[in-house]
């Protein structure tokens, strides 16, 4: 499984989001690749799940990839709930 954390430049908030996602994956015992990307290149990178903010989520939705929008990128509960929601669909 490949997860992409997306933000404006691909190294600030997406890196923080990646840390939160990795924490949850570890907690749940799930193995996945987590990478960061900036918004402009995100749509050309293959991924199973994209985590990003509300703004970018709206623009990235609609394709084959599952998009999770996150309000607080460091909130483990929010990221956990987001991950569970896409894994159960």
């Amino acid at each position, binding site marked *: 499984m490949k997860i992409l954390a997306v*933000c*404006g*430049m691909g*190294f*600030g*908030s997406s*890196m*923080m989001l990646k*840390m*939160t996602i990795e924490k949850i994956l570890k907690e749940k015992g799930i193995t996945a690749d987590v990478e*960061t990307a900036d*918004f402009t290149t995100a749509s050309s990178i293959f991924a199973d799940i994209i985590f990003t*903010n509300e*703004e*970018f989520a709206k623009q990235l939705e609609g394709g084959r990839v599952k998009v999770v929008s996150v*309000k*607080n*990128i*460091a*909130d*483990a509960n929010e990221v956990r709930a987001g991950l569970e929601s896409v894994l159960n669909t």
Partner: protein
Amino acid sequence: MNRRVLEKQAILLDVTAKDWEHAVRICGEILVKTGKVDPTYVDAMIRNIHELGPYILIAPGVAMPHARPEDGVIQEGISVVVLKEEVAFKPGKEFKVLIGLAALNSESHIDILQKIAEVICKEDSIERLENATGYEEILHLFNEKEE
């Protein structure tokens, strides 16, 4: 690792800003004053928001303006600005706290990001930031160890 993420000269409280751009500029000017970035970096912070939208809202009420290392970072560091009254990127995208980030590359700034994440992952510490009355409280939040 004993490096301090935040120094007291990089904190401004009770700041009045007329709009988001003004607030981001104040936050960036601190990084210029503390020798972390060139003035070009501040322009890049603002330009990025114009181009990419309010993606720097990292938690409800908290913005983390930043640009790329090549936009003029001299040294890594952060600045913290707490506004008197919140401003908005657009309706529904308000913020009262700004954490200005100067990062050199994706490997070495992970410690700083980790620290910011530790602070904003708890709602009560966002409230403490928003309501801080002295810089000591903010220094404490960023420099305290997570148990």
